[in-house]
């Protein structure tokens, strides 16, 4: 075989094929890398606990220590530990059961009740058709909105506050999570924030939109978010209603 045989059309085909395979492989690994990055982003967003909540809860626990109430102090310290543990664990999974989600929300709500001295109450309901132990959802999607309801909606009202968290099945393939409070309503809460010179930036909506976007990139169907000031529905009611529509797998 002479050297010139290397440059026959036959070899060109092999060369082209090899380069196509190499490019395809590169493209594939890039895509894979992208997915890994998105997954890490998700985990990071999930493991973020609002620092304001963290440090104020710890301060509330400290108050029981100085008031010499070891039982209360230990109880809330345990709640704090439970919550931290669950959030850390949840951040490693893309999906968790509704049951587990509620197990995480409970210590969170208890700690918030402690901070706000029982000025609000909460209720979590799951509609009958839902099997909470097997139905899977992306963890902690509703949490930022619960936080908003407590810290901006219910804080400072002079009537008993109430948050209802509802898990409803809209169709066999679609779950709705509702966060419904009887606070001042989102429009007024925003106005107050601006008036008090605090930067008007909704971390809750930002984080959630970010998560919804990356969940979509991971191949999930689009999660939809709807926030309503209840005054717009009925002038006699007050509060905010957040609805998160989650397509089920």
């Amino acid at each position: 075989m002479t050297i010139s045989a290397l440059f026959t059309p036959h070899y060109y085909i092999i060369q082209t094929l090899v380069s196509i395979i190499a490019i395809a492989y590169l493209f594939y690994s890039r895509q894979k890398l992208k997915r890994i990055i998105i997954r890490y982003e998700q985990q990071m967003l999930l493991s973020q606990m609002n620092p304001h909540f963290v440090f104020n809860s710890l301060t509330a626990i400290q108050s029981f220590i100085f008031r010499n109430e070891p039982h209360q102090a230990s109880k809330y310290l345990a709640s704090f530990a439970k919550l931290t543990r669950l959030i850390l664990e949840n951040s490693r999974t893309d999906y968790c059961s509704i049951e587990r989600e509620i197990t995480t929300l409970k210590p969170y709500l208890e700690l918030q009740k402690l901070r706000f001295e029982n000025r609000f109450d909460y209720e979590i309901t799951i509609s009958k058709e839902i099997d909470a132990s097997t139905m899977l959802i992306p963890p902690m999607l509703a949490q930022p909105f619960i936080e908003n309801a407590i810290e901006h909606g219910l804080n400072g009202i002079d009537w008993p506050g109430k948050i209802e968290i509802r898990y409803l099945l809209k169709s066999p393939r679609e779950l709705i999570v509702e966060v419904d409070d009887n606070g001042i309503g989102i429009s007024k809460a925003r106005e107050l924030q601006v008036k008090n010179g605090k930067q008007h930036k909704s971390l809750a909506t930002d984080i959630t939109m970010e998560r919804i976007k990356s969940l979509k990139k991971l191949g999930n169907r689009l999660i939809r978010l709807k926030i309503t000031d209840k005054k717009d529905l009925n002038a006699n009611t007050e509060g905010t209603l957040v609805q998160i529509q989650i397509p089920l797998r």
Partner: protein
Amino acid sequence: MIKAIIVDDEKLACESLSQMLGIYYPTINVVATATGINNGYEAITHLKPELVFLDMQLSDGLGFDLLQRFEKIDFKVIIVSAYQEYAVKAFRFSAVDYLLKPVDPDDLVKAVDSALTLAINDSQQERLNALIENTKQEGTKERLLALRNTEGTFIVKTSEIVRGESKNNVTHFILSDGTQIRVTKTLKEFEDLLRDCGFIRCHQSHLINQSKIEKISRFPSPSITLCNGDIVPVSFRKKRGVP
């Protein structure tokens, strides 16, 4: 008895702090607690406390807004805050006393001791004003830096500082108008604080304002000439940070 007021929108935080004060400072009498700017202002003007513990996040605004209502602050202020990075930085720039929540009892003792021993005329007003300015200018490179030494407190603009030099754990600052200020703090502390304001540590004992560089020379040894003519050496290990 020393009269004190706690302003914090978290009731349990007020309680925790007043319990702690009761244990460590029986001579301090917490005469009132307030949750916001309006009732805080009222309590302070009526009860005239000597010491005010002020949280930054209040129900109806920021702790600074309360301070700004007073023409003259004739009480000692100790700022209490749940963690917020930008705020902590602003406190350090302005050299004000602050406590982070939950409060470490040792830090509380230190802060109260320093507040009670210092004379009221000791530049607190200037430092608090600097703090308010600094929080307004969030996002820009320009800050007000409070430099405290035995002669008093100097509030300088970061853009006026040419360089800092460390000699035996004392930092000497040289300003563009030629003034020198000595502070008994390490250069490292200022390096951390001033990094975002365009300062670089070009040598073990030198911190320079990047915008004041006039010339960089490599021979005979690496050095930087600054706008006031000062020549500062660049150490081999820090070379990479120099533009």
